[in-house]
């Protein structure tokens, strides 16, 4: 046993390896990405691991492995589950043979996501059990238990960490042991083939099974009532990270009470919950996203006619959106326990022993601070691509449909080149819908290379076949950049370390019947602008593939600097490009050498030729 600093996502991966997982698939997405990356990095050699092209594909590959008796895991973020929902819903009826864990990371906040959806609700919808860890340590043990339950009940199970568990690190003892699982192999049986009659029969079985499972979960040790504050008739029910916030806040407040920890929100551990409700008159429920535990408790109070007041999101005692913090939990607890919160400096009088001192929290600093939203990196090829399209379409009516990835950041000033963004692949298709109504507009669809393989291709087929006129702008930076440079079919690499033949986007488009395909280097501004203008004048689907690697894939060879005498302070470079390496100082443009990536775009934009290559020893001085 070695103690390591382990991130929640690494803990999940290491726990799965310990449990003998042998097939792991997924699609990258914050906050889930590091789970699969850790499996690949710590692969003992006999685990098959792949970044699949999308979550539906990943889930089906894992399902196939589980049907053959292997322990399989699939990882994704919450919106990825929407993509995978078709196979999940049906697989719930069919079941599995080997243990199968579907890890779906939720993102309260949201910090890096489109939605604040709650995967626990998906458990109810699909009737699949849900495991909800409260810490990285618990996640490490729980993932193995999830495999055990999956095999015991022959069903896939959902495992749902949230951002603050995925991206928290802890000191953890990691076992080098590994469960031996020898897959029996696929055994032919009509039960693997979904049919209406079978679904009806399995539906009955699932409902009965979930009753048994709820009873089983009532004795699962991760679900527990922590008895404290003997005479207190107030209790807290909590799940996920909110449980540790509750523990921290109780410590800060110096209060103790009964604490009901819910580790399996579905099927709800009813017997244990009822036991808890019988010991209290009032409950505060602490959870993120939806009022899930809260509704279960309200339901049980009705079902068993228990006179318990349940407070939480539904009673506006907790916020209905956003993530929890120790602060908002502490505040809610103070109110719940009737503790007076006093601002330090408000006066020395303390009302009773339990008065709480609070130092003017949430007061923003009384000084103007610059906003700092995320931006496209200095040297990012997307900036050049967006800028070229913007220039080429100047004076023409055009709509720019965007998509998910770093290039969503093209929406910010000064580029303002993302008019729509919905979900993976929706740029290609929404542009077609716009075309059906906005005939006089040039409708652009911006799509990244990984997104193209994810869900972009069916949209292109649809556009070609149905004769839509759109400009397909493929931003090919040779990687899945936003999530940290994962390979995809266009890169030629796999997570098994092997090299595959690259699938060329241009060839795919050609095969799909796209007649006009232009390949450009976006850092050649004039040529790129011209290529965009030509594409905009084509009928049907016209594609421009902007090929330039993400800056994370190489080191810059040549930086640029502003020649002070030649710069006349027109600000054009700063105003047009919004490059984070550039700013104005004393009416002159300045380039920060530590940030410059030598893309040369500013030099091409400057009307006075004032930006020129910087002589360096090859980028050493960074």
């Amino acid at each position, binding site marked *: 046993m070695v103690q390591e600093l382990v991130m929640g996502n690494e803990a999940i991966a290491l726990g799965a390896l310990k449990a003998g997982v042998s097939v792991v698939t997924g699609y990258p997405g914050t906050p889930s990405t590091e789970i699969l990356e850790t499996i690949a990095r710590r692969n003992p050699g006999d685990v098959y691991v792949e970044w699949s092209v999308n979550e539906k594909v990943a889930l089906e590959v894992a399902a196939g492995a589980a049907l053959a008796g292997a322990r399989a895991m699939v990882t994704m973020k919450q919106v990825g589950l929407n993509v995978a929902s078709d196979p999940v819903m049906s697989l719930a009826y069919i079941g599995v043979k080997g243990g199968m864990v579907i890890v779906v990371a939720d993102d309260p906040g949201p910090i890096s996501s489109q939605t604040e959806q709650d995967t626990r609700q998906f458990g109810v919808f699909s009737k699949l059990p849900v495991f909800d860890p409260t810490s990285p340590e618990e996640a490490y043990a729980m993932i193995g238990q999830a495999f055990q339950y999956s095999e015991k009940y022959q069903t896939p199970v959902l495992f749902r960490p949230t951002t603050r568990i995925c991206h928290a690190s802890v000191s953890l003892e990691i076992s080098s042991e590994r469960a031996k699982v020898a897959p029996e192999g696929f055994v032919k049986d009509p039960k693997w083939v979904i049919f209406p009659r079978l679904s009806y029969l399995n539906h009955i079985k699932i409902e009965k099974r979930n009753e048994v499972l709820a009873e089983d979960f009532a004795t699962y040790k991760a679900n527990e009532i922590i008895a404290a504050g003997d005479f207190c008739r107030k209790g807290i029910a909590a799940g996920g990270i909110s449980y540790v916030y509750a523990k921290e806040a109780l410590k800060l407040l110096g209060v103790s009470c009964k604490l009901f920890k819910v580790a399996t929100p579905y099927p709800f551990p009813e017997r244990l919950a009822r036991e808890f409700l019988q010991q209290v008159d009032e409950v505060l429920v602490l959870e993120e996203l939806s009022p899930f535990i809260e509704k279960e408790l309200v339901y049980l109070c009705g079902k068993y006619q228990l006179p318990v007041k349940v407070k939480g999101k539904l009673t506006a005692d907790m916020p209905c959106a956003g993530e929890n913090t120790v602060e908002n939990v502490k505040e809610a607890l103070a109110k719940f326990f009737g503790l007076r919160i006093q601002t330090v400096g408000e006066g020395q009088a303390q009302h009773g022993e339990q008065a709480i001192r609070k130092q003017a929290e949430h007061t923003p*600093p009384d000084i103007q601070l610059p906003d700092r939203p995320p931006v496209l990196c200095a040297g990012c090829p997307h900036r050049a691509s967006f800028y070229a399209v913007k220039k080429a379409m100047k004076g023409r009516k055009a709509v720019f449909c965007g998509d998910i990835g770093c290039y969503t950041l093209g929406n910010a*000033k000064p580029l303002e080149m993302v008019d729509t963004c919905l979900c993976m692949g929706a740029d290609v298709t929404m542009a077609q819908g716009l075309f059906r109504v906005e005939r006089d507009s040039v409708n652009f669809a911006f799509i990244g290379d990984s997104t193209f393989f994810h869900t972009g291709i069916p949209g292109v087929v649809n556009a070609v076949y149905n004769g839509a006129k759109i400009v397909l702008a493929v931003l090919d930076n040779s990687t899945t950049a936003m999530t940290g440079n994962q390979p995809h079919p266009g890169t030629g690499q796999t997570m098994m370390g092997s090299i595959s033949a690259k699938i060329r986007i241009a060839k795919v488009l050609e095969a799909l019947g796209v007649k006009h395909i232009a390949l450009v280097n976006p850092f050649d501004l004039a040529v790129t602008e011209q290529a965009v203008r030509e594409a905009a004048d084509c009928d049907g689907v016209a594609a421009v593939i902007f090929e330039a690697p993400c800056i994370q894939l190489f080191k810059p060879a040549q930086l640029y600097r502003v020649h002070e005498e030649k710069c006349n302070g027109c600000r054009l470079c700063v105003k047009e490009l919004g490059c984070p390496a550039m700013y104005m100082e004393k009416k002159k443009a300045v380039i920060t050498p530590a940030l410059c990536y030598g893309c040369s775009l500013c030099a091409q934009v400057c009307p006075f030729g004032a930006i020129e290559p910087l002589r360096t020893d090859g980028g050493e001085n960074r």
Partner: protein
Amino acid sequence: MNCILTGVGGQGTILAAKLIANTAMAKGLQARTAETIGMAQRGGSVISHVRIGEEVYSPLIPEKTADLLIGFEPAEAVRALRYLKKDGTVIVSKTAIKPAGASLNEKDYDVSKVLAYLKERVGKVIFVDTDSICRKCGSAKVLNVVLLGVAAASGTLGFTVEELEETLHRMLPERNLAVNLKALQEARIFAADCPI
């Protein structure tokens, strides 16, 4: 010990948080950290939380309880001041990073005002001339190790510069080691002339 590290995405706060946690763990202490990973890493405000010791539950540091705030950028240090406890220490780089937006809106970001604000509001604050130290080391990338070195030398991290050095030897790849050891040495020299 609660420590906040804050700066701009790409400045190296995540590695710095790891170095602190690993150094503490080498001394047999428990560590818990929380990171900003995702979209904000593209030049946005980022914050790392590091908590050392037993009886720590939340990965996030509750407001007003940080013993130490390491600011990789002055405005970001001010933004995170709500975490600092009453007599907590701030160690901050004097070098501003202008957001792309600041140049656009012509709202100038006046770093001297921000530094003056920190001086006025924080009892214990160390301003680090990271620019000149990094230049001496020949790399802007050692900013994180420079700030950690100053923090360790000031005694606020609960471990020494030597203990931090051992962690660098253990964790950094060979090719980056020399420049980071140099950074640590420069930090030590800076801290010796600059008591709190």
